[in-house]
């Protein structure tokens, strides 16, 4: 299974140039059944990343472009009166897909944002009293512009918490940028990608990830991190128990991708920035800098 994962990562890195760590984190997030938030300025490859992953995983892919006038019905669907059968019929919205790219999620109004975020949390949609389950697997990759840009409604902390990870892409390095400028168009590359990890295999991997062993020593370290964020003056408020669970889940997936059946502190450290960054300081996109004091101060025993 690790073989398939590595092949998938190789293919993805052919398309997304110079960002192996972010690609790995994004996949880790999916393997841990989490939703991913990509935060960066427009044009650094947020959409391409999500599109590539959808292709490689062979998932139904739908992009929802969030705008300031988008309505909840535009996302989850609406009941329409059918003149033939004389009854209301539910027309599912774009959310009924295996992988959703919620593009520029912070440009929509809070009402529309909540519609999506509720669907993410519940993995089902209720319209007019009827509950419709969402397909399995179900992933949301949301992209977000830095909140200082004009015309944005920043997601509140409670909703940011729904995303397992937040990843920043950043500019490519000069070498990767040169390759990008001279190479094929990313879009056509994306279209031609083969499926590397079919949904059934993905589900079995997700099952295996949940089985990765967590020792007491590691739990000590994990609790050390959580307690540090709660007691340190660096942070406005510490990590919640949900954040602790998210940290462990992500670390398990990371350990699995590293072909290990037990989590070690390095796994926690690898995913810490992506998992804890947006939970500790919502407005700041420098995740690595946010968690640096944790890595420096919490001792590993």
């Amino acid at each position, binding site marked *: 299974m690790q073989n398939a994962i590595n092949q998938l990562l190789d293919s993805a890195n052919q398309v997304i140039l110079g960002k192996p760590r972010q690609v790995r984190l994004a996949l880790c997030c999916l393997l841990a059944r989490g939703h991913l938030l990509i935060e960066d300025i427009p044009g650094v490859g947020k959409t391409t990343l999500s599109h590539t992953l959808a292709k490689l995983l062979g998932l139904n892919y739908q992009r929802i472009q969030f705008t300031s006038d988008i309505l909840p019905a535009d996302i989850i669907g609406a009941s329409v009166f059918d003149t033939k059968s004389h009854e209301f019929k539910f027309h599912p919205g774009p959310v009924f897909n295996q992988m959703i790219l919620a593009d520029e999620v912070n440009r929509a109004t809070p009402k529309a944002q909540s519609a999506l975020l509720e669907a993410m949390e519940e993995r089902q949609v209720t319209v007019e009293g009827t509950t419709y389950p969402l397909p399995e697997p179900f992933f949301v990759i949301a992209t977000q512009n830095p909140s200082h840009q004009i015309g944005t409604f920043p997601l509140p902390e409670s909703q940011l918490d729904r995303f397992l990870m937040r990843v920043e892409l950043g500019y490519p390095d000069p070498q990767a940028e040169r390759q990008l400028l001279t190479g094929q168009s990313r879009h056509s590359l994306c279209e031609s990608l083969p499926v590397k990890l079919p949904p059934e295999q993905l589900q079995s991997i997700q099952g295996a990830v949940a089985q990765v*062993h967590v020792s007491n020593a590691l739990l000590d370290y994990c609790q050390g991190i959580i307690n540090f964020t709660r007691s340190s003056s660096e942070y406005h408020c510490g990590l919640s128990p949900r954040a602790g669970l998210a940290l462990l889940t992500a670390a398990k997936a990371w350990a699995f991708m590293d072909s290990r*059946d*037990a989590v070690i502190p*390095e796994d926690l450290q690898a995913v810490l920035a992506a998992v804890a960054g947006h939970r500790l300081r919502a407005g700041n996109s420098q995740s690595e800098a946010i968690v640096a004091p944790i890595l*420096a*101060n919490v001792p*590993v*025993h």
Partner: protein
Amino acid sequence: MIMKAELDKNILIFLLSAIGLIVFPHVYHIPPAVFGFFCLLLGWRFAGIWKRNWLPKMPVILLLAICGIGLLYSQHQGIFGRDAGTNLFITALGLKLLEIKAERDLYLISYLAFIVAASQFLYEQSIAMAAYILLVCCALLAVLVAINSYKMQTSAALKTSAIIIAQALPIAVALFILFPRIEAPRWMLFKDLHQNKTGLSDSMEPGSISDLVLSEELVFRVKFAGAIPPPNQRYWRGPVLSYSDGKRWTQSSFQNPLTRPSVTGAPYRYTLLMEPQDKNWVFALDMPQEFSPPLTLNAAYQLVTSDRHDKRAEYQVTSYAYYNTGSLNASEYKAAIQLPAEPSDKIKQLVGQLQGFDGAPDNFIDQLLSYFRTEDFHYTLTPPVMDNNPIETFLFQTRRGFCSHYASAFVYLMRVAHIPARIVTGYQGGEMNKVGDFMEIRQADAHAWVEVWLKDKGWVRVDPTAAIAPERIEREISMDRRTSYGIATANNYLPRSAYDWLKQARQLWGSVDYNWQRWVINYDNKNQSSLMSSFGINNLKTMVYWMIAVVGSIAAVLCWFLLYQKPKAPDNKALLFYNRFCKKLSKHGLFRGAGEGAKDFAERAKVKLPSLAKDIDRITDVFIKLRYGRSASEEDLQQLKSLVALFRS
């Protein structure tokens, strides 16, 4: 040894602050030039923390060292003696500060600072100073703790050092009590130039005692075994002045064989605890009768000691309030009626008027005392200045003065009337410390009174001051002192209860201080052997055995305590072995960071030690398996143990 660059700054600030605190009390003891030089060096080093390139280069340091040597030489002309030695250490400490290059230098500076801290005790041995030194030593120890800890945290380091000091204290106490005390021979103690003690002098001019009256400095303490004399008998005898040049009174140098006075009445037995003096006088209650060497009674019935008087000393004395010194010999008589010049007519007229025609000496004394009482004489601590012919000026013009004025005028008039008389200086009074049940006599109690020789009675004490200001003699607490404290002013603004409270607090502190002086500072080999014999320890050998036993048992208790606490850390065998492995790697300058996982550390170690890469990987893998893995067996633990043991560093 590599310096941890990022910790450098905090530790330096900490160290320099601690050193500043340690040297600070020396501002009272060392010349301003030396202290200024040290402050300059310390300030320079402080600035150097933020501006590294401001620090002096080698030639400049050399120049500064030469300056320092020059400064020391100009102040002391050598490096021997207490002051010179202390200054040498302080200057050396300041110079060394500018030369911190490696961790080794930090250690050296800390040790030097401990010596400077200890040198404070050469000057002052009060409880407050001891507490202060203990505190700054705690700070200094915390610097050493911080240098050796991975992450510098001021509060944690201070806590650790406080614990260390608390653990060391019982051992220190045991050593203090039981270690054989060695007295340095006198020739080993270098005399220092800057020694100036206030106190009674061996001469007296009218007005010369007034500068003492405002001094609260303790002169001696007395602990009575039994009855305590009433305030009007508390005359502590000092030098006797019998020669006058009209203005100045000095001691006569006659050395006649002394006849012990005959005594009657109840004895007062007491222990005198003298503070350091610059004279070898011991102030005993009138009249000392029983005392032991090194005390001797001189011709003027004053106790003197042949032992060292510049340190605290303890004496057992028995005095009797009623005595008869017997007859005078010719030279004594001559000295006791000596006059500087022929008295003026005015004086003669006064004496004639008071003495009447051929009156008895007793009668004349009474007449003179009542003259002082009834005429317009005043007792004041701030009399007008009397330069020429002070006695006449005092008697006929100013009529304001205190004990020395009245005593000298009284003796002068006695001698004009051919009655042998002399001035006795010393201390009068003393305040009982109710807490410690001992009496404190301060410089403010300095007094001068008169002795008149009467046939059949010998030398008889007469205190003219008592006639003019009886409250000065009869009081329990010095009026002068209360006035000088601003407590008993004309309109007594401080409520009585507040004054009582202040007095109690003072007495409590005085009692604590007495016990400190008595049991700590004055704990010499004599006191030690008497204390030891009360425990049944009679010779040095037994005492040393006891010392070893006590220190050993305290150490054993501490060891047990520390070992008992220890098992908290290595609850996990795998971690224990892994830590051994880390220790081996640390010899190569590889230190695992607090937040560094085993795998990351192994990667780093492999880069630095490629030849050991295989071993490092194996150990790390087994450790990870044991520590974080799903199923680890006892064999894995044994494997880790042997791998670590075999690991060549």
